[in-house]
């Protein structure tokens, strides 16, 4: 009887600890969100989105150039990585279990897990040094290197979900294999593939480390890809590292904008994928 009680006690204790761990794990998330809203919301204004940073001492100013810079660099990175990533994903999904497929899949996983700062160093030595200067193009290239493996793997996984009989139907109708891949397999997997790309974009938009010595950051409007360019995470870093209270305030506001963008992309992606997979969670 006492053994039974002991076992029941251990059972409840063990299960309780697991629940407790789950609550504990969510404390930082809640804390981050609460601080973002309580400190960031105060700094939100129209000027935050449209104006340049003001020198210390002047009131107001914004992070407009950083938003623009993030938009431009992530856009260019997307143009570079999306076609390659989708094509590579197709090769992996349709390559069966060949050695080549296994190697490429492993390489993609390794690249996805590579420290982003090391990718920054790579782009610095390969692009910034030969071009003798920091540039938005180098920043975009670093982001593209980070996005490529993510897009490749998510495209592959979603293409594999397309039922084989859809492909067979296409082939039976006399379509060439490449048309089946593009118009049947890829098309029916499109919502999921788009989701994977959206997640890669969200991750790239939040990256700071690979931009430190590629895009470098800027306090002015920049459109030219051969010049240094600001990015929202870089700007937050600059603001947060300063000793000025007013800049810290702006850092929280900018972080609130960044996190809102990233979380919306994530939640949106979840929603789309769930529908695409017929109610299955990602």
């Amino acid at each position, binding site marked *: 009887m006492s053994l039974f009680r002991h076992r029941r006690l*251990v*059972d409840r204790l*063990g*299960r309780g600890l*697991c*629940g407790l*761990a*789950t609550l*504990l*794990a*969510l404390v*930082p998330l809640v*804390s*981050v969100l609460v*601080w973002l809203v309580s400190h960031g919301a105060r700094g939100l204004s129209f000027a935050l989105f449209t104006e340049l940073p003001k020198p210390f001492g002047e009131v107001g100013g914004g992070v407009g150039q950083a938003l623009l810079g993030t938009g431009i660099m992530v856009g260019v990175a997307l143009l570079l990585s999306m076609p*390659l990533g989708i*094509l*590579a994903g*197709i*090769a992996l999904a349709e390559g069966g279990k060949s050695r*080549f497929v296994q*190697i*490429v899949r*492993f*390489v*993609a996983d*390794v*690249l996805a*897990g*590579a*420290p*982003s*700062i*090391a*990718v*920054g160093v*790579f782009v610095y030595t*390969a692009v910034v040094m030969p071009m003798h200067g920091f540039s938005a193009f180098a920043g975009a290239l670093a982001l593209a*290197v980070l996005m*490529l493996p993510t897009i490749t793997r998510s495209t592959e*996984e979603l293409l594999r*979900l397309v039922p084989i009989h859809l492909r067979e139907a296409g082939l039976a109708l006399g379509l*060439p*294999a*490449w048309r089946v891949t593009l118009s049947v397999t890829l098309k029916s997997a499109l919502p999921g593939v788009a989701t994977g790309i959206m997640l890669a974009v*969200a*991750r790239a938009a*939040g*990256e*700071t*480390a690979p931009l430190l*010595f590629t895009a470098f950051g800027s306090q002015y409007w920049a459109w030219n890809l051969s010049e240094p360019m600001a990015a929202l995470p870089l700007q*937050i*870093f600059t603001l*947060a590292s300063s000793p000025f209270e007013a800049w810290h305030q702006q850092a929280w506001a900018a*972080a609130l904008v960044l*996190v809102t963008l*990233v979380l919306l992309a994530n*939640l949106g992606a*979840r929603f789309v994928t769930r529908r695409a997979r017929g109610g299955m969670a990602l």
Partner: protein
Amino acid sequence: MAASLNPTASTHSVADRWFRGLTVAAAAFLVLLLLAILLQLGRAALGALQVFGPVLLTGRTWDPAGATFGILPFVYGTVLTSLLALLIAAPVALGVAVYLAELAPEGAKAPVTVAVELLAAVPSIVYGLWGVFVLVPWLRDTVQPQLQTWLGFLPVFSGASIGFGVLAASLVLAVMILPTLAAISRDVLLAIPRAQREAALALGATRFEMIRDAVLPQALPGIVGAMMLGLGRALGETMAVTMVIGNRADISLSWFAPAQTMASLLANEYAEATEELHLGALAFVGLSLFAVTLLLNLGARGLVRRVAGSAARSPGGAR
């Protein structure tokens, strides 16, 4: 071949071959990219390696002005903060994984999963901001004085409480790697066959005994793999660590003391470095980070696959 009866068959096969070639070329590009990164970093580090040899790795002095470069303090900072982070995050993540895979009621699974995913989606710079303005003051004013009062006789809890330092960096890292650990461990647990659980319950085991004796032992290699992947993330994590670790190239026993990691060294110095040897030594740091995470990935994926196989990845699994 029957296909040759089709008048368009030859155009089909040419187009097919081209398309196939294009996709394979794109896939091969990834392999080339990995090789290019390794080669380029290796080439950039070569000069410094030739001058300093193994001292580059074992030297304790990092002095760009005096052209002396030893990265041991940064290796120490990186390994210490990452291991501490793993030590803090692993038990919590295992709890979350067990909760999600075995215990959570249907209604709680989805929200908790979403929350853990959001925890992973918050950018590093935001954790840095939170670390500087929330975590560091809390550590400085509350946690570290308490630790010192009760456990101050331990050398790791000695020294002044300034907040910025090893402990702050490890805690931020723990928060950041927790979602990775939890998500992969959960996938591994879900891949353990259902019959295994039912057998344990049928023998009269409580649910906790079922988890402890029938599920966890089988899942262990996969969970170890998840931890190696988390460790890999912690080693290379840059921004949040740079903001809270205090950035001093010291090897100190105390966890309250400022330190510096390999990644934060790069973040602090690379953009300003101009001397060839300095740049080379920094490139060597980048190469080492890259190589170590590559090896960790290699080992970890093997372990995870051994348990979960394709089951955890397939959509038909128990998710």
